[in-house]
């Protein structure tokens, strides 16, 4: 093994903790800090109107800086002994709780996050694109068309920024690992705990960045409604639907989202035929959208005296509640019909009931919304209106998506064929996601709301789908 030649030449702050950066001679690649030069050249460019003809000088200076960058774009960061982010992942070190001060666990968690972020960026495509752009920028006649040149260099700048962000992060991780090994060799416990602490902080930051990468679609930050509808099969399915609903309620509570039941139609004997809950909290839609589809249950029915095995289905829909900033569908009052939900009898002074549920029907689309959980009719109506608004918004989004001919699966298309997950309680015990093959052998924990594994694996697999490289 190569010995380390270390120059503790500078100290810097990472995440508020003082760490020392190592420049090691054994590293096969060097990472000159060129971000400042890129920034400078971009600043020069920005101060020059792209359409004006005197952009040539700054343009050429830009080219010269990018040329050196281009060569490092494909560089892979590694530690002294050749450890890379990819190798860390391949090692499959177990990821333990954050509080366990195990550097391998931290490194594995950070690497995993980096991998997700890279997927989100479509990393390989990004590198190829950067190469193309650099080649373009190197062409001597580029600035003959200043508008085109501006576009190219802007894109180049933005992609370079993204790439450098990830690479810096990667490098930081590997530097920490080197530092840790050094601390161990030198029995420097202070340095060791300092570095571990820095890695733990980095792990938190990387988790946040990973989530940002996973939940970066337009409506992901929204709150949402989750709707569960029982499949055919009466009591058996109604019971399953209520189990699914409970699963989401506890999941949401664990995630510290607030949950309110908006609408619930009870089954005749047990369970629910249908229910809608409102899940309030940042990114609740981004997570919950992973649950859209049909959920299948296999078990010995508690309702069957013959103790036979039954299969039941429940469909789940998730609707984002768009913020005020987004364009929402205009609803005309004249298009609405509002009905007392359980009317009957003379009403008025004749009747005293705390039940003031209303149903709102949007006549042109036939879409309806019901709310019965509020304590006044006025509030039930307002709540049902909010559901109706979101349903119409979603319908409009689906329509526009179809119009744009981008094939993305619409949330409104829950057909009973669209099965996403199977929960088997008998003859063996397992929950398996049919989209990601993610599986868990403890159905109870899942039904008690431990869904994050399923949700995150689905979200990251959706990134793969966008990325043809995978």
């Amino acid at each position, binding site marked *: 093994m190569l010995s380390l030649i270390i120059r503790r030449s500078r100290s810097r702050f990472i995440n508020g903790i003082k760490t020392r950066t190592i420049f090691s001679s054994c590293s096969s690649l060097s990472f000159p800090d060129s971000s400042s030069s890129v920034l400078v050249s971009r600043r020069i460019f920005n101060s020059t109107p792209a359409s004006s003809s005197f952009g040539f000088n700054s343009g050429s200076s830009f080219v010269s800086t990018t040329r050196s960058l281009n060569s490092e774009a494909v560089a892979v960061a590694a530690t002294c002994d050749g450890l890379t982010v990819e190798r860390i992942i391949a090692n499959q070190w177990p990821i333990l709780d954050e509080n366990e001060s195990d550097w391998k666990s931290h490194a594995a968690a950070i690497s995993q996050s980096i991998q997700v972020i890279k997927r989100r960026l479509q990393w390989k495509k990004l590198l190829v694109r950067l190469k193309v752009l650099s080649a373009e920028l190197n062409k001597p006649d580029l600035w003959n068309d200043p508008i085109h040149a501006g576009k190219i260099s802007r894109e180049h700048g933005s992609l370079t920024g993204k790439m450098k962000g990830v690479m810096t992060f990667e490098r930081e991780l590997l530097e920490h690992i080197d530092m840790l090994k050094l601390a161990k060799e030198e029995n420097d416990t202070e340095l060791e705990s300092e570095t571990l602490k820095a890695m733990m902080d980095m792990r938190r930051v990387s988790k946040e960045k990973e989530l940002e990468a996973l939940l970066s679609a337009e409506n992901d930050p929204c709150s949402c409604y989750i709707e569960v509808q029982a499949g055919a099969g009466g009591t058996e399915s109604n019971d399953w639907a209520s189990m699914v609903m409970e699963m989401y309620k*506890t999941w949401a*509570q664990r995630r510290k989202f607030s949950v309110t039941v908006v609408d619930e139609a*009870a089954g005749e004997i047990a369970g629910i035929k249908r229910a809608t809950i409102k899940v309030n909290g940042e990114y609740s839609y981004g997570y919950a959208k992973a649950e859209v589809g049909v959920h299948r249950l296999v078990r010995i029915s508690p309702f069957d005296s013959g103790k036979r095995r039954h299969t039941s289905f429940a469909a789940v829909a998730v609707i984002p509640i768009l913020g005020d900033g987004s364009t929402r569908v205009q609803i005309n009052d004249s298009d609405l019909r*509002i*009905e*007392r939900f359980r*009317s*009957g009898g*003379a*009403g*008025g*002074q*004749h*009747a*005293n*009931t*705390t*039940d*003031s549920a*209303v149903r709102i029907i949007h006549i042109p689309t036939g879409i309806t919304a019901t709310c019965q*959980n*509020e*304590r*006044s*009719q*006025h*509030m039930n109506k307002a709540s049902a209106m909010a559901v109706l608004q979101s349903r119409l918004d979603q319908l409009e989004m689906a329509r526009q998506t179809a119009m744009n001919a981008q094939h993305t699966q619409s949330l409104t298309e829950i057909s009973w064929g669209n099965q996403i997950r199977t929960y088997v309680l008998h003859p063996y015990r397992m929950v398996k996601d049919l989209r990601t093959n993610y599986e868990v052998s403890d159905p109870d924990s899942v039904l008690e709301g431990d869904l994050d594994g399923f949700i995150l694996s689905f979200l990251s697999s959706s990134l793969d789908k966008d990325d043809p490289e995978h």
Partner: protein
Amino acid sequence: MIRIFPSLRFTSLLSAAKPLCSYSPAKSSTETNSLSITPKTPLFLRTPSHATSLSEVWKWHDWAKDLASSVEESSTNSEDVLDSVILHRELKWLIEDSIVDDPLVILHRSEIADNGEKNVKLRASLEELYDLWRQRIEKRRPFQYVVGCEYWRDLVLCVEEGVLIPRPETELIVDMVEELVTRDEWFKKGFWADLGTGSGAIAIGIAKVLGSRGRVIATDLSPVAVAVAGKNVQRYGLEGMIEVREGSWFEPLKGLEGKLVGLVSNPPYIPSDDIPGLQAEVGKHEPKLALDGGIDGTDSLLHLCYGASQMLQRGGFFVFETNGEKQSKMIVDYMMSNDLKDCFSDLKIVSDFAGINRFVTGFRL
């Protein structure tokens, strides 16, 4: 069609200012005995002075749930039954109103398993909660009296025995007024009156949509209603806009003849013969004064129609709640005939969300 009304009613109609109806007390209505009445404090506003162990509260909750689930089997009268789904929802609200902490510690006890030793602060003793729930189910005491409040529109109104619990249908009166005043600012400036205000619901709802320049006079014959309405007005800080006056119908409005821009009322409109057959919560607990509308239920409504012609200024608006169907048609017919012919324009029947022709509205010519 010519309708023959009891002559007694006609005489009183001609002198609109006189107290009317068989139930109006003989005493002078200027003497306010509402002052000596202190309205009850609803559960949700009481001091949480009852520390109780969670396990005891869970025991009560189990008992209450069982009682709520058993109502349908034990009922003998198939016409007038409690609905256990609704009772379970009421139980949840009862808990929300009685507990200071998160109601989930009671509703979702599995979340904080084996924490039953912990104390929670209740606004009523556990003994009282047992008693209240028994009253709800065994005595059919309306839930709103049990908790002492009614959620109505975006308001939470104090209610108690002696005051009609405002109905969901009646919320629409405020919607209609809101629509009117947004369309025409003129209505925001003058005097409005809510006659037979009960808990003050409509008056408060209207005052809120009128904005700062609105003035509403709310009247009621019942001293309890006047006291409760006064308290509700105070709770919403609307003393500057709403004046609650005690007395029969238009009597407390002397001097305002021809001055009102708006007149609203949900008067008693149930025909006397229907009173004995009412749902237990209504018939056994709510004030007859607010329900019994005489032989065909129109005693008060006809009086109000006549009064509207006297009290409203030109262009003034009125809306009355009725028993629906036949009755609303009768009121419109009445307003287009006899003495009232040429008094009103744009007479309309408006239905509630159950599709019943519940309201009569119009303008003074």
